[in-house]
């Protein structure tokens, strides 16, 4: 056996990195750098890019459709993230309990997450149908007014949000279950000896100790929700009257339908910055919470 050679070791490390590194550079970093460059250009994909400075950005902030799409996207985040957090936490508690239905609960809530987006959206579109849908049959039998979910300007976005929550909650439930299983049972036993009831155990042990999971769920869900596109594209096509158009949808329309790739890149860049801010907060919170744990 040879003597440990630092140089050789490093060379070997680079060699192992090479296959992935080349792919990363060619398919991720170069296009990424290019897309950032394109924010300063007017480019219709088929022609030669034309330098226009910051014109894409000035256009963006006077573009009513962009601003409304940005608002719709935030609105969607607000509609999805808080409910998904609370619900997935409660479901995880149920699934982690000693209840006999544990296995059923776990698979029942995880199953939708394995379906493809088109299956989910088309199924829910049928459920929402005011004339033939299951939901309207149900509300009718209760004597409630039938809501025309996907073409009603007030209900369209909540309807898309409900579908999204149903579809993606399984992922968050899994995260919470993993978090719950890491809490040592001795904590609860000690609390019981001190006479704490289940409510107090929840407030003072479970919720605080899941801090890292809360952060992870909030941030991943915010970032995922900011990128909403498929659901509105399939279920409402951004309608009615553009009331559910989101930023990614508008980027797609501008770039690929209207041949304004530079403008589309600029909007994508703004969305990227917004997501970067959330990712930064996540990192900060994660680091600070892991420091706490060390203490």
């Amino acid at each position, binding site marked *: 056996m040879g003597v440990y050679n630092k140089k050789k070791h490093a060379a070997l490390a680079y060699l192992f990195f090479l296959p992935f590194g080349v792919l990363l550079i060619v398919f991720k970093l170069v296009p990424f750098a290019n897309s950032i460059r394109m924010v300063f250009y007017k480019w219709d994909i*088929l022609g030669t890019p034309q330098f226009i400075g910051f014109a894409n950005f000035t256009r963006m902030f006077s573009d009513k459709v962009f601003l409304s799409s940005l608002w719709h996207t935030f609105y969607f985040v607000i509609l999805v993230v808080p409910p998904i957090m609370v619900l997935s936490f409660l479901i995880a508690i149920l699934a982690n309990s000693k209840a006999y239905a544990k296995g059923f609960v776990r698979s029942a809530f995880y199953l939708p997450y394995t379906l493809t987006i088109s299956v989910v959206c088309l199924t829910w579109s049928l459920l929402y*149908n005011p004339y*033939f849908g299951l939901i309207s049959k149900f509300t009718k039998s209760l004597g409630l007014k039938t809501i025309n979910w996907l073409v009603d300007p007030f209900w369209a976005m909540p309807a898309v949000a409900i579908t999204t929550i149903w579809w993606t909650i399984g992922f968050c439930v899994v995260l919470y279950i993993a978090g719950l299983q890491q809490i040592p049972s001795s904590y609860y036993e000690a609390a019981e000896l001190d006479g704490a009831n289940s409510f107090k155990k929840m407030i003072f042990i479970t919720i605080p100790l899941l801090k890292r999971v809360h952060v992870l769920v909030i941030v991943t869900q915010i970032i995922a929700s900011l990128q909403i596109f498929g659901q509105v594209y399939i279920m409402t096509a951004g*309608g*009615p*009257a553009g009331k559910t158009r989101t930023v990614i949808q508008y980027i797609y329309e501008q770039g690929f*339908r209207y041949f304004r790739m530079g403008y589309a890149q600029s909007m994508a860049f703004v969305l990227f910055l917004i997501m970067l801010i959330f990712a930064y907060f996540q990192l900060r919170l994660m680091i600070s919470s892991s420091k706490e744990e060390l203490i």
Partner: protein
Amino acid sequence: MKRLVVLLFVAALLITTAFAKTTITVWTFFSGGEGFIVTELIKKFNAENPDIEVVEQIVEWGELYNKLTTAVVAGDPPDVSVMHLALIPDFASRGALTAIDNYVSKDILPDYVPEIISKAHYAGKLYAIPIDTHPLVLYFNKGLLKKAGLVDQNGEALVPKTWDELINYAKTVQAKLGLEVGISVESGPMTGERLFIAYYTQLGGEFYDAKSNTIKLDLEKAKKTYEFIKGLYDSGVMKSMDYNTAESLFQNDQSAFHFNGVWAMAVYPTLNINFGVTSVPAIAGSKPYTWGDSHTWVVPKRPKDDPNKIKAAVKFIEWFARNSAEWAKAGHLPVLKSVLNSNAFLQLPMRKDYAQVANFVVPAPSMKGWVEIRQKMWELNQSVILGQMTPEQAAKELQQAIKNVLAD
């Protein structure tokens, strides 16, 4: 030695025949019944033309134009692609299509419905071979009309010829039979773009101003059109709905009338519906003009033109157009007059009832960026229906959108 010479000779022969065969790749987005017909037609063409081999590549419907754009940029597009007529200006103006004036047979152009072939041109050059038109038409449920007593002396269901008749009949059936709607129609593209263009054109509105040679909206007529559409919704004879709901209501005897494209004729006759099909109604004194787009074949631009390939490609797409009676089984109307008047076409079920519509088709105006305008039309129409915008505001905004797109 002799054997070797013979062997070499045979090999050379094989190689030359292999080289003589021109391969043409074709991108389509047709699936289901339409896809089946295209595949069969390509098979037939290949059998009839041993020197050309057409290879079909099916691209997902929503992805084809994106992929085509990037393939042209990459310098490796297919030899032929399907393209909607309304998109020709977007691609032709950016140099993504090959002009085929010098390749096309001289006798085919005069055979076309003039309105359609004129839109296959951009800046004076021919860029596409249209194979059909798929206009908006009116479907009616004969059973429901009869049930509501709307019959002529022979006991046949009454067919509305004017908008007033349509609205009258629809309201009568809706009230008498307690239906959800009188007319079921999707409230985005189908109403906002297609019905809009039909009514606007019938009012005498145009998108093209010959005096200034520009695309222009007639503000007054656009406003009137929005008022008309709003009236239909306000009266409850039409309600906001998506495409699938509109179809389901019609197919399940829940609406007496239904606006849709002729492509629905690929399916409706196979269902258990007692229905008829006719042109959209007309404003008294006007012809029943209606919206219609077309499928066309185009030859995407390569970095270097290969005249042999283009020649073979054009041969194939012309052949396809001339054999479009077969393609018409998918419900579309042929746009070559010789095919439109052929027995092969007219003998297809119910085609006689709407074949004449081909003469009143109004395609999208020939402009770059029409896709953006029509998206705007879908949304403005919904804003008007929902009462979030007055017809006048919507007309003005549409006019402004057209100006912006033209100026961009």
